[in-house]
């Protein structure tokens, strides 16, 4: 079944506007909430052209609840359900509206196993305790993830990522956003930022592959004494700050690595070298240290 609805509340506000000459009056905030029954693992897509935050939390019910508040009627919110797919789209109805009127915040409650595709301009994107693949895009908003798992793709221009207790695979790409990965259970990590900083504080899962690159920022890794990984750290014009010399041994697999004549590099093995860790920075600092 496929159906479409406009956010309720728009009509009364417009009617009131006509009655009282609201063309001159400040826009009134609006709120709506919709419930969608779903079977299995739903896919929730939010396209938010406006500014504002998106918050996603999970529950044990087979139902998706979308709650939205908007600063004015200058934004149109459409929702649509097609089977297990739920689309929420916020579009600007009046391009001439002041920035303050173009704000829409979303609060989602979804089943624990849900796939997400969220896109917004500014404002925080917060996802907690959701299992499923997710693509999260923001120009200037921060992205905070807590206890999520799946194939997680994050794209920002300015926004930073904080990923706490995430599991699965993480792919982050940003121009000036930072990335912090804390207490992860990730088997694959690809982080790239042009000018932001990267902090990875947690264990490296055996057989995991971890690539972290920053053009001009710092790449900092805090590992534990029980970790087992091969390390390759390289910089073109930056520096490598090795604060874990006691734990880093020459490569134990018989492969002799050497930095090219154009780069400064650090190669070695911690433990048995089961995971693979590649760090690089074009002109920033790479720092490796063991957690206390």
């Amino acid at each position, binding site marked *: 079944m496929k159906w479409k609805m406009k956010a309720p509340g728009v009509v009364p506000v417009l009617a009131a506007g006509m009655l009282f000459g609201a063309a001159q009056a400040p826009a009134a905030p609006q709120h709506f909430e919709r419930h969608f029954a779903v079977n299995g693992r739903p896919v929730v897509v939010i*396209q938010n*052209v406006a*500014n504002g935050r998106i918050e996603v939390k999970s529950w044990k019910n087979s139902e998706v609840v979308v709650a939205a508040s908007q600063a004015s009627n200058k934004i149109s919110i459409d929702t649509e359900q097609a089977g297990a797919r739920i689309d929420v789209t916020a*579009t*600007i109805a009046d*391009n001439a509206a002041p*920035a303050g009127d173009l704000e829409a915040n979303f609060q989602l409650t979804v089943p624990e196993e849900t796939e997400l595709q969220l896109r917004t*301009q*500014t404002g925080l994107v917060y996802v907690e305790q959701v299992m499923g693949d997710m693509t999260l895009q923001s*120009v*200037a908003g921060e992205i905070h993830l807590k206890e999520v798992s799946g194939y997680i793709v994050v794209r920002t*221009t*300015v926004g930073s990522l904080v990923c706490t207790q995430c599991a699965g695979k993480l792919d982050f*790409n940003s*121009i*000036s956003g930072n990335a912090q990965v804390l207490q992860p259970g990730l088997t694959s990590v690809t982080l*790239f930022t*042009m*000018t932001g900083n990267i902090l990875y504080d947690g264990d490296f899962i055996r057989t995991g592959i971890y690539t972290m*690159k920053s*053009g*001009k920022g710092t790449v900092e890794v805090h590992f534990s004494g029980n970790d087992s990984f091969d390390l390759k750290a*390289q*910089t*073109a*014009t930056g520096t490598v700050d090795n604060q874990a010399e006691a734990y880093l041994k020459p490569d134990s697999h018989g492969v002799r690595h050497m930095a*090219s*004549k*154009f*780069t400064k590099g650090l190669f070695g093995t911690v433990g048995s070298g089961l995971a693979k860790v590649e760090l*690089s920075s*074009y*002109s920033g600092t790479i720092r490796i240290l063991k957690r206390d």
Partner: protein
Amino acid sequence: MQCKEVEVVLEQHGFVPVPEAARTHLAGCRSCQGLVADLTAIVATAHLLPAEIEPPPRVWASLRAQLEEEGIIKDAAARGVWWQRFPELFRTRVLATAGVGLLIVAAVVLQVRPPASRPTEARNTYENYDDTSMTLSNDEAHLPSMQLAGISKVDVALRQNLDIVDKFIVDCEQRVKEQPGDELARDYLSGAYQQKAQLLSVMMEREGGVY
């Protein structure tokens, strides 16, 4: 030996003659016998196919005339100035976005190129970078004026980041020019081109009201 292993042996060593290692298994396995029979039939049929034939020039001439008649392609005189209309193409958002998409692909191709091992290869690679850089700069020059004048937080952030990317590209290009063998710098330069292409795409989409 198992059926899967036989497949691997046949793939690696061929089946004329059947490798020694697979013979014993084949003797008692109907499924693998069928596989070898199928492969033999395919090869035999392939040998019977004629070589590719180049169509005669009159076919091309006729095809061109037909396309010109239907207005699908223009005559030679008009073709001479096609490039002068190129910027006009980019005034529509869809084509602009598609153009940026193509650039992303080009940048990806550049990134997966094997490292230049000889000076001539390194030079060629740098020339390719030069082309990419120029194309991206052209796209940047055609950014809609609305986007360049926007005062919203997002527009400002996008412009600031475009500036960041441009500066980083200049830095990396300089490094690659001086040290063509620096793989790391080339890697970062490719990444920067991709990010610029994506950023331009976002900026053009915003102007088009897709968001």
